[in-house]
């Protein structure tokens, strides 16, 4: 299957991310993101052909929230779809938007991800995903100590712990430059050890400070066809390609396929990326905890040995470094789950479009990578570029 035409992101918007949004109900919060996205794209609601809506099933205990949200999201009288793929929902929305535009079916698609975690009961929702008979009492979502233990086993406790907290601190430094970010803690590098030691343990060496936040928030992204980009004179971040890899088992422990590495290998092979760190300029990673952020860096960038630890130790992933990771502050700073993976795509697009403001990286951005993560071990990767893709890319093998 090949693309009929190119699709690009021409605008994005986000609500403020926060632990509580008592001031707005769900459609009102979504409205904030939609208004900002339309303004950023410099289009009117009338220009939108189709809305894609997604969040985590059951997290707010609302069945078919897309029906009710028409009050605020602009879907009245338009084509629409609701999608939900767990933590990856946001980036699945982006993939679907790309497919709908690239196929020629729609010219302008608005993708909306949201979550109001404060209103619901996330563990109740997550537990529901497992087999009712065998799995429900064991399901914990991203709250697992195995990520930390894996890095500690391989690199020793001291180096592993320092790397995880250095990563965590860098993410906070980035969040401090992103006014939309939820948790901005002003962590200081000189107190890395103390900060970790004083943080309550969750599971094993996964501590509260390493873990992603629970946020309320919404994100909206405008996708447009090649023709529409030209007609509007828009500033585009072109979609090169995307890849989804997942495994369905929840109960296998030990050596497993890395869905991160598998997705990266397939995507990079199709896009002709031989040297990810050189060919890609910035990476917005869905990092549910600092430990997974550290570990997955190696898989996503197809690195071996301790190269990923060195990247952290040598400050390569900082905002002004040679390979910035999560200029936004990432998922540890802000995690409105159904929006989170779409925020990664939006942030990557902002870097390509040069619209990230105070957290715009200093190097020129030609290509940006965004990832999504969800249960059970779903990975979605999307590659964006400043240059319009020349050739038609086969999106499915």
């Amino acid at each position: 299957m090949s693309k009929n035409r190119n699709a690009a992101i021409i605008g994005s918007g986000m609500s403020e991310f926060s632990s509580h949004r008592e001031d707005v109900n769900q459609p009102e919060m979504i409205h904030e993101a939609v208004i900002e996205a339309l303004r950023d794209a410099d289009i009117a609601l009338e220009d939108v052909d189709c809305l894609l809506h997604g969040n985590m099933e059951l997290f707010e205990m609302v069945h078919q929230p897309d029906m009710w949200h028409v009050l605020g999201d602009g879907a009245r009288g338009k084509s629409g779809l609701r999608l939900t793929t767990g933590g990856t929902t946001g980036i699945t929305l982006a993939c679907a938007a790309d497919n709908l535009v690239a196929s020629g079916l729609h010219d302008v698609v608005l993708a909306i991800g949201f979550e109001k975690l404060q209103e619901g009961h996330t563990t109740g929702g997550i537990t529901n995903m497992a087999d009712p008979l065998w799995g429900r009492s064991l399901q914990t979502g991203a709250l697992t100590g195995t990520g930390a233990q894996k890095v500690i086993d391989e690199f020793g406790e001291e180096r592993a712990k320092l790397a995880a907290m250095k990563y965590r601190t860098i993410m906070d430094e980035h969040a401090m430059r992103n006014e939309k970010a939820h948790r901005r803690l002003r962590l200081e590098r000189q107190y890395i050890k103390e900060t970790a030691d004083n943080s309550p343990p969750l599971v094993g060496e996964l501590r509260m400070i390493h873990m992603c936040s629970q946020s309320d928030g919404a994100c909206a992204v405008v996708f447009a066809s090649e023709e529409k980009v030209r007609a509007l004179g828009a500033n585009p971040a072109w979609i090169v390609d995307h890849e989804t890899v997942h495994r369905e088992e929840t109960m296998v422990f030990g050596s497993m396929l890395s869905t991160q590495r598998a997705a990266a290998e397939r995507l990079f092979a199709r896009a002709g990326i031989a040297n990810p760190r050189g060919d890609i300029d910035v990476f917005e990673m869905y990092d549910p905890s600092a430990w997974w952020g550290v570990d997955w860096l190696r898989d996503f960038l197809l690195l071996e040995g301790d190269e990923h630890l060195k990247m952290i130790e040598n400050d390569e992933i900082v905002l002004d470094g040679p390979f910035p990771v999560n200029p936004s502050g990432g998922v540890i700073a802000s995690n409105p789950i159904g929006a989170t993976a779409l925020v990664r795509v939006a942030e990557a697009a902002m870097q390509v479009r040069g619209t990230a403001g105070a957290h715009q990286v200093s190097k020129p951005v030609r290509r940006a990578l965004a990832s999504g993560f969800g249960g059970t071990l779903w990975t979605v990767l999307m590659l964006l570029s400043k240059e319009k893709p020349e050739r038609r890319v086969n999106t499915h093998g």
Partner: protein
Amino acid sequence: MNDAFVIEGKMALPYQYFAGAVGSKFLVALRDEKQILGVRCSRCGMVFVPPRQSCERCFSALTEHWVRVESTGEVTGFTVVRYAEPYQPKKPPYVLALIKLDGADTPIAHLLECGDPGRARIGMRVRAVFAGERRANLLAIAHFEEDPAGTQEGHSPARL
């Protein structure tokens, strides 16, 4: 089949709902003042009750255009509930009606008490009966009752 087991399960899924600044203003006025507030879209002219932050048609911001509508109105649709379920607001049979308040363009759903449920009619004139002890929810209006003398003439919402 005798050997096919069924496992009974039960999950508690608690939730909260944040009414937001707009919804809260509506609920507080209902509880404290027995007033029914709405918002008017300055572009479409629509008066929304309950109020909304934005117009779903034209996306205009509405929160600068509060109005007070009447506690009288007209039935635009109804159903007679004849079966019993836990958590129902009252014992069946009873009437659930869509009621367009005078001055509003959108109906609200509420209980209609009109004696025999068979008497309920689209177009029936009704008025709100407020509860004695009111909490910040739609049941601050206990129910609607028939208002045979009422007419819908000359009702325009009062600007706040």
